[in-house]
């Protein structure tokens, strides 16, 4: 059983986001990157499957700054093979381009199962897993909350809005978009990560030139703006409270 996990980094919201001079993208100068939370769940799910079935786990990631730390951490958790895909991710990269470029590389790894987070907060043109399944001509199920591997198929739980879940079987190979791993992503001691840095190897594969076709074109990126119709109450606390009370009364409250 060969499991490939696709993991990427996204802007860390611990820092305030700023728009760059073009007005169409985030200013990357001060931005920190963090592993996409749901990709972390995908890694955890792959390790859980490895522990149950002895599967071989390969983690594949775009070569963003600090991706090595993420890959070594995955190795310390139990991933067998680490691959980073080199390429020009700077200029208007989108998920269509990544999926198109990664499809042949991942096919070479002959996976039985491909896991990725079901979404990321910088997915503007659809989620990576679904696009990858499209380019690889494989079945895709998203919002997956549990995976059991059987003979030539996987039995999965898929979550729906409104608290509904469904159990279904999908023939392998397949791509799954992980909503949540069966256990929370584990913490791995820094000493183990440091050990992995000494022993694990990160392979590099060049993605070549990206074909950006199909991605969404950002025409304007902006911070949330105060909408029309909002009334800002000003003055002393007492004034504001009085005004608020009269407005609420006017609107029929109380």
């Amino acid at each position, binding site marked *: 059983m060969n499991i490939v996990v696709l993991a990427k980094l996204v802007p860390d919201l611990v820092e305030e986001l700023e728009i760059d001079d073009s007005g169409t993208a985030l200013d990357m100068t001060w931005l920190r990157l963090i592993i996409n939370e749901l990709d972390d769940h995908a890694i955890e799910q792959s390790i859980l499957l490895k522990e149950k079935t002895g599967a071989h786990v390969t983690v594949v990631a775009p070569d963003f700054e600090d991706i090595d730390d993420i890959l070594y951490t995955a190795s310390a958790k139990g991933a067998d093979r680490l691959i980073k895909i080199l390429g020009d991710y700077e200029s208007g990269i989108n998920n269509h381009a990544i999926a198109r470029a990664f499809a042949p590389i991942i096919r070479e790894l002959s996976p039985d199962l491909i896991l990725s987070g079901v979404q990321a907060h910088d997915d503007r043109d659809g989620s990576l897993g679904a696009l990858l399944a499209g380019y690889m001509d494989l079945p895709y199920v998203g919002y997956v909350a549990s995976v059991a591997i059987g003979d030539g198929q996987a039995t999965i739980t898929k979550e729906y809005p409104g608290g509904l879940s469904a159990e279904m079987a999908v023939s392998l190979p397949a791509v799954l978009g992980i909503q949540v791993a069966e256990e*929370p992503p584990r913490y791995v001691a820094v000493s183990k*990560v440091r050990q992995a840095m000494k022993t694990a190897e990160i392979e590099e594969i060049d993605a070549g030139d990206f074909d950006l076709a199909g991605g969404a074109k950002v025409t304007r990126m902006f911070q949330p703006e105060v909408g029309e119709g909002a009334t800002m109450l000003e003055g002393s606390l007492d004034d504001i409270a009085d005004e608020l009370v009269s407005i609420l009364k006017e609107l029929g409250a109380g």
Partner: protein
Amino acid sequence: MTAATAPASTRSFNDVFYESLFEVEDGERIRACLQCGTCSGACPFGYLMGFPPGRMIAYLRAERFENVIDSDSVWMCVSCYACTAVCPKEIPLTPGLMTRTKEEMLLAGNVPSELQDALMNSQRYGNPLGESPRKRAEWTRGLEFEVPTFREAKRAVDVLWFVSDYPSYHPRVQLTTRAMARVLKLLGVDFAILGPEENSDGDSQRLAGERGLFEMLAEKNGKALSRYEFNQVITSDPHAYNAFKNEYPKLGIEYPMQHFTEFVAERMDDLKPHLKPLEEQRVTYHDPCYLGRANDVYDAPRTILSAIPGLELVEMPHNRSTSLCCGGGGGGMWLDGFQWEKAHVRLSEWRIQEAVSVNADILAVACPYEPPRFEDAAKMVEGAGRLAVKDIAELLAESIEADA
């Protein structure tokens, strides 16, 4: 967990673990354990731990230490040094047995999830609160004067103030941080901070079993400190104090360190003329574990409190080396939910009950973990409604700024 620690010999995990305890300073004293059980009795959570310290040693001797590792008993340990302080054979239980056990728990992945979050935040952001490292000096914004970072000062500065995590980020503790800045300013101290270059001291993470993380954070601080010229380090955080005093030197990071209260107590002659009377109140002082029991600093805080006009210093039944832990040490700060589920009591409430029992108006503290912990606890304890929790720095600032 045996594979991670045991060499490829036939020695059991039990043996390898036991011998690893000898590497701690005075660690071989564990051989002399009398099984008197004083440690387990002194432990604030000993009554509900499946394996209090004395029983852990019994299991170790019976070669059944795996039972301890398989339980989650040790996560009730708040590294308060109460066991260590009373051991008649002076076995270093807290830095040795308890911390080493947590390290094994961590390697085995047997870690409560709320603690994992604090450790992950410390790894990612250099502070357990998960705040932006760039905002580490934002607490200075509420001051009427500038607190320079070393990077801005671009010169040798007398005192490096290691601000630490909670004083930098926690909204309640920031009030004590700004009070301390005003006291230093009044004393004419030439000081600067590291700002965003500062990382968590890592000591509580170390005591929670994450030694590798501690070393990583210490290395980062060591690098930042080596860039600048200064004569000494001060801090309001007993945990940072403990790291600089007892742990960083082992990693080659050696700087003279004083707790804020020691630093001020040496300057009382300069300070006294500025102290104006506060309203007459009874104040009692809580000895933080890592200032008191772990480092024997008991007098400096009392010297300061006794010098503030209007305050009458009274002692609680548990004081100095028998002080009661606030519950925040050794990872306890990040295990409140876990410990509540097990115990359904808070150690901090016990402390508040004592403060109420001596009719104190003010509970004075000297550790950044304490204002939020004790203020929360005071809300839950009958009769504590009018008890104020104040850091010594806050009381000093109030006295300095009081109307003459």
